């Protein structure tokens, strides 16, 4: 989505060339393009390329093996040259895919545009019809149509186009609905552009990439259905099409088994290449949409490369000082985290950050979104996304590195380090009751009987302010409020008595009144149990309220670390000063309102 809108600023032609260049670089896509262009070329110049007409028979050539004199691929049962028939047959294939594509794009895109742009009753009816069409096997309807029209390929292909138009309809409608709500479309409206111009200029631009990608799959389907209809004997037997050739050679499969190979091969390869082309197109046009997990070998090479690059660099030369002494519980050293890019490189998002947490300390980790603070939090628990790559550094728990010792890390989860997530609702499994998932989690960390776990959790739920805890245990996540869900998650984190809690923006998703309560709970728990806490947040108010120490993070680096009072009184770094100033002005604005 974003890629489609970002491109708008650049010159259209330049973009097209860039896409083509990227496509050609991909060897599979290049072969696919050449094949497809070849089929188009052969269809266009069939009369020049073929040595005779499609139905020219030469009885002497009947069932001739391939590579015979004058008949390169041999002859079929009726003595027709197979290569010539393939050449002529490409014409009905190309015609079929043209009709299917034009009809389905025209029908699907127009209805999708109208439904997505105007919504209302048109959309309701269109959605119902689309459901109807999509719940039918197309081939059965095409057979029914044959009963009416007889062998009429263009009509059959047009109808097939209508039958697969719903794919475009759904695609376009969903994109239009989301584009419509974007600001620039509103702006265009305010400026007074007519609907038609808005659609033409902004909406069509956003949908063009998905349409191109889908079209190569549509063409593949068109070839398949054309061949299939002919194979069923529902084509015109006097014409030459790949499907007809397949059917006719299938009937003489015992006399001339090789003849069936050629149409099968041509049909399969053309369909296959169109699908590969579609995949390659979607990689090129929508590459930003996906981040792929790197294969293990490439991953190892990338890590080695990254480590080689930093030896001798200032980060490594100046060993980070260990603050105070042995009451440091968890310490992150020179942590570097990266993500693979679509071009095979790695984008580093954390560039060697250090962090020390002492026993019982609440340590704020602040910074803008994208500064890498959540990445730091996740790496202490080993719950970074699958595609993330740890490029270097260590996470020391009681002096043992967790990053190199996955067994120790697994054991530390839950038992030593607890986790309180940001979004309360999405962090509870919707298919299990609160009680079942809490009990399971607790028993995974600390082996105990179900009854004991249940009793302990009920007690904890009451501690965090849930009154009818027994009832809440039997509810499903969708039956409780966001604030209650966050209390449940806090219980899940502390139930197994960890020494440190990693809380990732624990109040951001909550109402203001509930935020204060949740912070109060966290503070209380920390005091009662001597719990240390890493509190990831962008809210300096929360930091001032709760934290003992603060680390400020910017662009993947810790830029400042201080006691909370010192930081608020005299921030050293310019960035911290800015952060403080902007948060104060927000507060002022809130007060003025």
């Amino acid at each position, binding site marked *: 989505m974003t890629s489609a809108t970002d491109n708008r600023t650049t010159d259209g032609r330049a973009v097209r060339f860039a896409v083509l260049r990227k496509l050609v670089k991909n060897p599979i896509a290049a072969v696919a393009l050449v094949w497809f262009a070849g089929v188009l070329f052969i269809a266009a110049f069939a009369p020049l390329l073929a040595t005779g007409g499609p139905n020219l028979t030469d009885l002497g050539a009947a069932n001739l093996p391939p590579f015979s004199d004058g008949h390169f691929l041999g002859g079929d049962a009726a003595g027709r040259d197979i290569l010539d028939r393939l050449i002529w047959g490409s014409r009905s294939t190309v015609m079929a895919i043209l009709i299917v594509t034009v009809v389905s794009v025209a029908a699907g895109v127009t209805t999708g545009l109208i439904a997505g742009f105007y919504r209302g009753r048109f959309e309701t009816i269109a959605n*119902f019809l689309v*459901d*109807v069409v999509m*719940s*039918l*096997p197309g*081939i*059965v*309807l095409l*057979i*029914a*149509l*044959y*009963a*009416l029209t007889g062998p009429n390929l263009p009509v059959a292909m047009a109808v097939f186009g209508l039958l697969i138009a719903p794919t475009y309809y759904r695609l376009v409608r969903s994109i239009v609905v989301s584009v419509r709500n974007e600001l620039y479309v509103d702006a265009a409206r305010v400026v007074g552009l007519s609907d038609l111009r808005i659609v033409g200029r902004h909406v069509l631009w956003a949908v063009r990439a998905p349409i191109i990608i889908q079209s190569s799959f549509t063409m593949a389907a068109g070839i398949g259905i054309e*061949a*299939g209809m002919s*194979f069923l*004997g*529902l084509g015109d037997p006097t014409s030459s099409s790949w499907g007809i050739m*397949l059917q006719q050679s*299938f009937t003489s*499969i*015992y006399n001339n*088994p090789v003849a*069936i190979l050629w149409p*099968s091969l041509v*049909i399969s390869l053309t*369909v*296959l290449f169109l*699908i*590969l082309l579609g995949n390659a197109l979607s990689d090129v046009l929508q590459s930003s949409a996906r981040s792929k*997990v790197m*294969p*293990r070998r490439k991953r190892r090479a990338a890590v080695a490369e990254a480590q080689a690059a930093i030896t001798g660099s200032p980060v490594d030369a100046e060993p980070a000082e260990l603050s105070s002494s042995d009451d440091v519980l968890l310490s992150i050293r020179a942590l570097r985290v990266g993500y693979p890019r679509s071009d095979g490189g790695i984008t580093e998002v954390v560039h060697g950050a250090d962090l020390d947490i002492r026993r019982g300390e609440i340590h704020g980790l602040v910074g803008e979104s994208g500064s890498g603070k959540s990445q730091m939090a996740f790496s202490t*628990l080993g*719950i970074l*996304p*699958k595609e993330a790559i740890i490029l270097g550094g260590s996470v020391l728990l009681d002096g043992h590195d967790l990053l190199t010792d996955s067994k120790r890390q*697994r*054991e530390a*989860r*839950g*038992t030593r*380090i607890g*986790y309180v*997530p940001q979004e309360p609702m*999405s*962090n509870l*499994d*919707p*298919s299990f009751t609160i009680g079942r*998932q809490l009990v*399971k*989690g*607790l028993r995974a*960390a600390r082996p105990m009987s179900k009854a004991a776990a249940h009793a302990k959790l009920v007690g904890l739920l009451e501690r965090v302010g849930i009154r009818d805890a027994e009832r809440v245990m039997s509810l499903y996540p969708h039956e409780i409020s966001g604030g209650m869900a966050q209390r449940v998650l806090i219980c*899940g*984190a502390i139930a*197994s008595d960890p020494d440190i809690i990693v809380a990732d923006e624990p109040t951001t998703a909550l109402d203001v009144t509930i935020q204060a309560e949740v912070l109060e709970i966290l503070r209380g728990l920390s005091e009662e149990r001597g719990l240390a806490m890493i509190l990831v947040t962008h809210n300096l108010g929360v930091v001032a309220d709760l934290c003992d120490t603060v680390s400020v993070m910017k662009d993947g680096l810790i830029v400042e670390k201080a006691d909370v009072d010192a930081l608020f009184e005299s921030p050293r770094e310019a960035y911290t000063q800015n952060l403080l100033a902007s948060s104060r002005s927000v507060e002022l604005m809130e007060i003025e309102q």
Partner: protein
Amino acid sequence: MLLNLMKNLLRSLGVLLVTTFAGFALMFGNATGIASSVLGIGATPESVQAKVVELGLDRPLLVQYWDWLTSAVTGDLGRSFYTGQQVSEALSQRVPVTLSVIIPALALTALISVLLGVAAAVRGGGIDRFVQFFSVGGTAIPNFIIAIALVFAFAIHWRIFPATGYVAFGDDPWQWVLSITLPMLALLVGAVAGGAQQFRTAMLDTLGSDYVRTLRARGMKEQPIIFQHVLRNAAAPGLTVVSLTMLSLLGGAVFIEQVFALPGMGRLATDAAKISDVPMVMGTVMVTVVIVLVINFVADLLIQTLNPKARMR
């Protein structure tokens, strides 16, 4: 839940009415066309007119449809224009043949797709690349070409399975197994290719969800997370995949029956269409739609019983 069920049922009935009427209007709309193709090339305009009246095609379309519908409800789908055979009788012979191929194919597709999809999503690496590769190849090659290749290999080259024909289960169970093995395999390739890929996506979506991360952070081991939590939540999209697979199997069976000369409903439809035996074609369209709707309905029902949110209401 009950309300949803009723809504679904009404919707299915709506779809059935819309599709049968559309099909009916399309096919019975061209009265003289049907009559002249029934009579053959030498028919005079008078005899065509007489035939139109004889077949009842001169009545208003809505009346004809109403007649057809009311008798269809009682199980009477009319008679073949050619043989005079009851359409319902022909269908009762043909439908079991098709179902005896596609139901085992559906079951195997679901099983194999789940196994492959889970392995690809969880293990990644080689098995994942294999699934990706197989899903492109398997969906690209039309199933009738796969069927032809299978005939070549296992019926002509190695004579393990019969190339054509069908033996009913009741007549000889072992022969039945032999006769449906190749057709089923031919259907399976494409269906598994699509199914495994879609199930892999469903698994990956669930694996990447927030609650899986939280479960991990609580110290749960990977295996119980996958088998208890992820599979449970990927089941609903998985069932949707299964119902879509049924749709593609029904379509694919038409071609497969042609290759293996199976006397199923796909061939019935194809043969009837070639001679414009409209009541017969109409009957197969209706049965196909009913099968699809029943499968969708059952899948919806299962999805709802799996979803605690829907179960409550």
